[in-house]
């Protein structure tokens, strides 16, 4: 059998084999075993066959050979012969592919391209009656001709233009349309289309609007948006379309479908961006006439937004190249009816349509400097007149708001003080009204009645915009505004929610970015002057002042001033014999801390100065104070030490390596000279003042990088001694602040600085603490339990080898017959993964990613099993196990709640079937001491419902039992000894609300698919909630109203069929 015959036999079912055969033949030709002519002639008996399939296969053989030949093999003449051959049989299968292969060759010329195109146009008049694949191949060939031989195609002129339009007319397949649209776009942009504008436009516009919806699992992945994009590119491709496209698109805005309108607006915007300005100008007023209805009577927000975008785009196009303002500009003609309409609407500025009118002014005035000038010229003077005639504050405020909108546009057009470059060539038209604005806004801000808060806030916002507007106000004019703000903050009494003061602080903070000098020169002296020497009374009037200073001092220069001023205040306080309340120095430290947290201290060049003053200087003072060598006891106060510690911690993290080393060496000596202060470790002291220095030491240690562990005193050759000393202190210390610091200090050393090979030291310490158990009562004292948990936290976070062993030991404590041991241990479980300011990622603690998962998967099954044991032992009389003490089950549930509050729900979900019964049992607890557990449980449930919807609960079969328990928790009247706090009641209602609004995972959904699993309990819920509507607490009632409304609205027997 010849190669041809074999090919024809296999081509239908084995493409690979067919390809191999063709490659063999191609090889034979290349090595001159056979000639190309022979091969073509061998097709002879088939290519004239009656059967088109047979003919197609024969041609395909030739095509496959050509595709397999090396691109340089065919001579110009051979290409020509083959092209003619294929063109003659173009309707036979495979010929189009053959041509496609040929046109890609270098020796294929312009003349041949024309020949192929003509063959396509004359033979495929009936293209639309052929299969999708065939059409696809024809379009691909055409597309390749367009990209490889565009000149030849273009020279064909109208022939190719009409030819393309003819063969694609009626095409419906989305894949084909994607190619067709891109071919047509080339024609539209590059051909002379003047004689056929309408034909060409209609050929694409017929497809508008695209209503295609891809079938599910569409292998081609073409979306409606892809098609819309290509179609839009065609419509907006040439200005010649304007007479057709713009009226047609505007007509489409009469459609009742918002989606059609949206497509029309998007296409319109594209046209505005791509047609030339003259064309845009011709239609600008017509477009405004139609779009104004979309904006003034907005149906859907996105339509009005798109319409505004279109209006702005027109103004931008019409501003191109315009450098001088004149009323003769097309831009001016376009803006005229717009400003007229807006002025009309703004006559009653408190009415509904004034708002869209403001939006229109906002978008057109922000389009360009010239546009801004034209708008201001016609809009601002009437506003002044209206303002003078206005009969009430409501109207006046609405007018000020309109001005504020224009100020925003001015900022867009002319920039702010901090804007770099891009100065507009045109003068800001608002300069003309500068004094008027300053008077008007100043008078409203300071002159209006004090209770007209929103009026004054509006004025304040306007004044602020003008103050930050580039090259507008003089320094002294902004200074005046700053003085107004100072006066509001320092002299005025609070009114209502204090909105004005909040805005004033925000305004000062904003100005501090643009004009820091004004803040330093005007605000600082005024504010610092009001700070007292010491806190004499209880009214703490310095707090609002410090809060304000903190918020406006983030800029570098201002912060330096703030630091200097506050640090000297603090130094004076530390020297006083009677310094008043420690709250004041603490507030000063808190202010510095707040600002440093807002700034990037590592980048601050003065960080070393702050380090020397605060870390070195104040720590030395702390040491002195601990030894009783200071004039007062400010630095003996635990709250002051805590705040100072945080400040040191932040600074230590920000300083250089050398300074870090210095800190490591001074962790306990606190930078004091050897004789002045005896560092704490290994001393026998029990003096509270001395012990309190551990607070500072802990914060210093926390800020230290892991790398300097070896510089810490008492760690050579290992930490065993230091750790033991700390454990001893943890257990014996009585003052809470000191105790907490010891615990964290211990954990920090074990988690962050203990080397890997020394980890067993810490593990052994836990075991020995556990062994200290009082064997008779199986009890441990609370301080020992706390020490155990903090050590465990340190080890579990770094996933020490003994993690599982530690967790099992901790769980065993819960079953202790001693009630106190069990309850204390139960509360400890929230510590293990709980967020902590000291053992934190920021401080470089070792926190392994998998530790949460490890803890959860280890502990949950154990708790679940234990609770089941307890339940069975209680109920089943025949069972030999004695009933466990009553406190054991609540202890396990408390531990569970503690763990859940520190675990992301994603981890919880796989365990939900095990977990849900436990959570329900937690809700069954009723006493006052279980309130915390129940609150935590409700929080967990809320997150589960929020993320996963009702379905997961339904799948476990617990909807009914969950709803019943939630309802029980909402009740105020549940019998003796039982307590549902208001917070619990509100939380339970929130869960009920979430059940109704999150029936489908993730998004809130109004129409659940099928019948809701909540339906069987709907009546029960509505009935019970009716009683909760009379709860004595307002926020509970509010939650009940919302939950009830959600159940009424969202829980339905069948999905809405209308939509």
């Amino acid at each position: 059998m010849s190669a041809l015959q074999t090919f024809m036999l296999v081509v239908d079912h084995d493409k690979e084999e067919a390809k191999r055969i063709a490659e063999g033949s191609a090889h034979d030709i290349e090595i001159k075993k056979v000639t190309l002519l022979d091969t073509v002639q061998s097709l002879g008996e088939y290519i004239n066959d009656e059967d088109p399939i047979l003919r197609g296969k024969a041609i395909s053989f030739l095509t496959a050979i050509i595709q397999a030949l090396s691109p340089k093999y065919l001579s110009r003449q051979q290409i020509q012969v083959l092209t003619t051959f294929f063109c003659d049989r173009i309707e036979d299968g495979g010929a189009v592919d053959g041509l496609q292969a040929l046109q890609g060759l270098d020796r294929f010329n312009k003349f041949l391209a024309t020949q192929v195109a003509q063959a396509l146009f004359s033979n495929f008049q009936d293209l639309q009656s052929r299969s999708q694949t065939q059409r696809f191949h024809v379009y691909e060939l055409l597309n390749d001709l367009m990209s490889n031989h565009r000149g030849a195609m273009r020279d064909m002129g109208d022939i190719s233009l009409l030819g393309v339009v003819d063969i694609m007319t009626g095409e419906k397949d989305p894949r084909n349309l994607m190619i067709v649209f891109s071919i047509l776009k080339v024609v539209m942009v590059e051909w002379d289309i003047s004689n056929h504008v309408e034909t060409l436009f209609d050929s694409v516009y017929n497809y508008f609007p695209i209503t295609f919806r891809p079938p599910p699992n569409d292998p081609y992945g073409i979306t409606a948006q892809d098609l819309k994009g290509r179609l839009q590119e065609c419509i907006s491709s040439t200005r010649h379309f304007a007479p057709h496209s713009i009226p047609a698109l505007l007509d489409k805005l009469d459609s009742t479908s918002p989606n059609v309108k949206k497509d029309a607006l998007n296409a319109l915007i594209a046209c505005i961006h791509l047609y030339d300005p003259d064309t845009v100008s011709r239609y600008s007023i017509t477009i405004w006439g139609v779009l104004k209805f979309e904006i003034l009577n907005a149906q859907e927000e996105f339509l009005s937004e798109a319409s505004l975008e279109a209006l702005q785009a027109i103004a931008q196009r019409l501003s191109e190249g315009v450098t001088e303002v004149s009323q003769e500009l097309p831009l001016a003609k376009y803006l005229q009816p717009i400003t007229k309409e807006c002025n009309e609407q703004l006559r009653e500025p408190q009415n509904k349509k004034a708002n869209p009118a403001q939006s229109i002014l906002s978008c057109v005035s922000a389009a360009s400097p010239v546009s801004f000038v034209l708008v201001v010229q016609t809009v601002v003077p009437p506003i002044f007149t209206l303002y003078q005639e206005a009969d009430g504050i409501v109207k006046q405020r609405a007018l000020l708001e309109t001005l504020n909108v224009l100020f925003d546009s001015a900022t867009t057009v002319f920039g702010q003080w901090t804007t770099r470059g891009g100065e507009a060539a045109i003068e800001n038209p608002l300069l003309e009204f500068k004094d008027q604005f300053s008077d008007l806004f100043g008078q409203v801000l300071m002159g209006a009645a004090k209770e007209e808060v929103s009026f004054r806030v509006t004025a304040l916002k306007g004044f602020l915009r003008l103050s930050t507007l580039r090259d507008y106000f003089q320094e002294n004019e902004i200074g005046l505004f700053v003085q107004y703000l100072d006066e509001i903050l320092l002299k005025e009494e609070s009114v209502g929610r204090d909105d004005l003061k909040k805005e004033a602080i925000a305004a000062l903070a904003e100005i501090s970015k643009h004009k820091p000098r004004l803040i330093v020169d005007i605000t600082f002296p005024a504010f610092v002057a009001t700070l007292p020497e010491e806190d004499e009374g209880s009214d703490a009037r310095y707090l609002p002042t410090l809060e304000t200073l903190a918020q406006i001092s983030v800029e570098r220069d201002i912060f330096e001033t703030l630091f200097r001023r506050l640090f000297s205040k603090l130094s004076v306080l530390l020297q006083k014999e009677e310094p008043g309340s420690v709250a004041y120095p603490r507030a000063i430290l808190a202010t510095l801390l707040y600002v440093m947290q807002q700034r990037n201290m590592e980048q601050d060049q003065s960080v070393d100065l702050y380090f020397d003053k605060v870390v070195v200087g104040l720590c030395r003072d702390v040491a002195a104070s601990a030894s009783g060598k200071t004039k007062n006891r400010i630095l003996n106060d635990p709250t002051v030490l805590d705040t100072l510690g945080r400040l040191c911690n932040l600074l230590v993290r920000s300083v250089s390596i050398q300074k870090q080393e210095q800190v490591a060496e001074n962790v306990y000596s606190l930078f004091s000279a050897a004789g002045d202060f005896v560092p704490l470790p290994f001393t026998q002291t029990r003096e509270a003042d001395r012990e309190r220095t551990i607070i500072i030491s802990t914060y210093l240690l926390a800020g230290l990088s892991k790398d300097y562990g070896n510089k810490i005193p008492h760690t050579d050759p290992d930490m065993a001694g230091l750790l033991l000393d700390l454990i001893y202190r943890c257990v014996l210390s009585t003052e809470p602040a000191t105790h907490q610091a010891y615990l964290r200090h211990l954990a920090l050393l074990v988690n962050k600085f203990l080397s890997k090979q020394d980890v067993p030291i810490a593990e052994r310490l836990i075991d020995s603490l556990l062994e200290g158990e009082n064997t008779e009562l199986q009890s441990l004292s609370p301080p020992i339990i706390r020490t155990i948990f903090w050590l465990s936290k340190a080890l579990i976070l770094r996933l020490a080898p003994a993690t599982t062993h530690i967790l099992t030991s901790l769980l065993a404590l819960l079953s202790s017959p001693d009630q106190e041991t069990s309850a204390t241990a139960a509360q400890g479980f929230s510590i293990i993964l709980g967020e902590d300011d000291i053992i934190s990622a920021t401080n470089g603690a070792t926190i392994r990613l998998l530790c949460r998962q490890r803890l959860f998967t280890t502990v949950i099954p154990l708790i679940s099993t234990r609770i089941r044991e307890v339940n069975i032992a209680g109920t089943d009389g025949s069972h030999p196990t004695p009933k466990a003490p009553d406190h054991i089950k609540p202890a396990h549930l408390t531990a569970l709640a503690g763990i859940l509050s520190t675990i992301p729900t994603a981890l919880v979900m796989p365990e939900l079937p095990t977990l849900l019964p436990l959570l329900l049992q937690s809700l069954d607890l009723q006493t006052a001491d279980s309130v915390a557990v129940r609150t935590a449980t409700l929080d967990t449930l809320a997150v589960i419902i929020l993320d996963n919807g009702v379905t997961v609960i339904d799948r476990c079969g617990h909807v009914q039992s969950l709803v019943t328990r939630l309802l029980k928790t909402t009740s105020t009247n549940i019998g003796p000894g039982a307590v549902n706090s208001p917070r619990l009641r509100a939380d339970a209602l929130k869960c009920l609300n979430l059940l109704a609004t999150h029936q489908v995972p993730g998004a809130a959904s109004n129409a659940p698919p099928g019948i809701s699993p909540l339906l069987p309990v709907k009546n029960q819920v509505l009935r019970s909630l009716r009683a909760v509507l009379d709860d004595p607490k307002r926020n509970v009632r509010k939650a009940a109203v919302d939950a009830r409304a959600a159940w009424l609205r969202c829980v339905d027997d069948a999905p809405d069929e209308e939509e």
Partner: protein
Amino acid sequence: MAEMQNSNPTILNAADLPTRLRPTTTRKSEYGGIFTSALPLAPVDFESPPSSDSEDDNLLEEPIDEQEIYDLISSISDPEHPISLGELAVVSLPDIMIKPTLPDVPDSPLQTVTVLITPTITHCSLATVIGLGVRVRLEQSLPSRFRMDVRIKEGTHSTGDEVNKQLADKERVAAALENGALMGVIAKMMETCH
């Protein structure tokens, strides 16, 4: 949608609507303001978290008052505009009254809520729908010991008496609530309630 009856009504600024002022924060902790973020309370382990609702607070009763009624109904949307009844001043705080239903029986828990509605224009045909919406919202949200009395404010509507008669007629209200289309409109109005 039919032609709007009042396409350009006056709107009150949301910031000016009556709200319940938070009880002046008795500064329990020294730092009520911004420093709380800088200074989390000193950590407390192994102790029940400082519960914000202490015993005293829990026992303090907060009776339902006019502001609460206002908050329930002011966020209902107008059927014509996507704007709330509060912003349109259709409902206002001084036009809400709560009185004992039986003043002669001092122990009776029954109370009557009176809400007067001010339509945006005097010939608004949607006044009945608005009244019905307010009524439905109150019935869904108030305990059963409350009686509702929703009326058009005197002199603000050309056919006020007619509308009031419809709103007061229990059977007609019940019949209206069976009407799917009408309930659809009312459900839409209440979507914005929060």
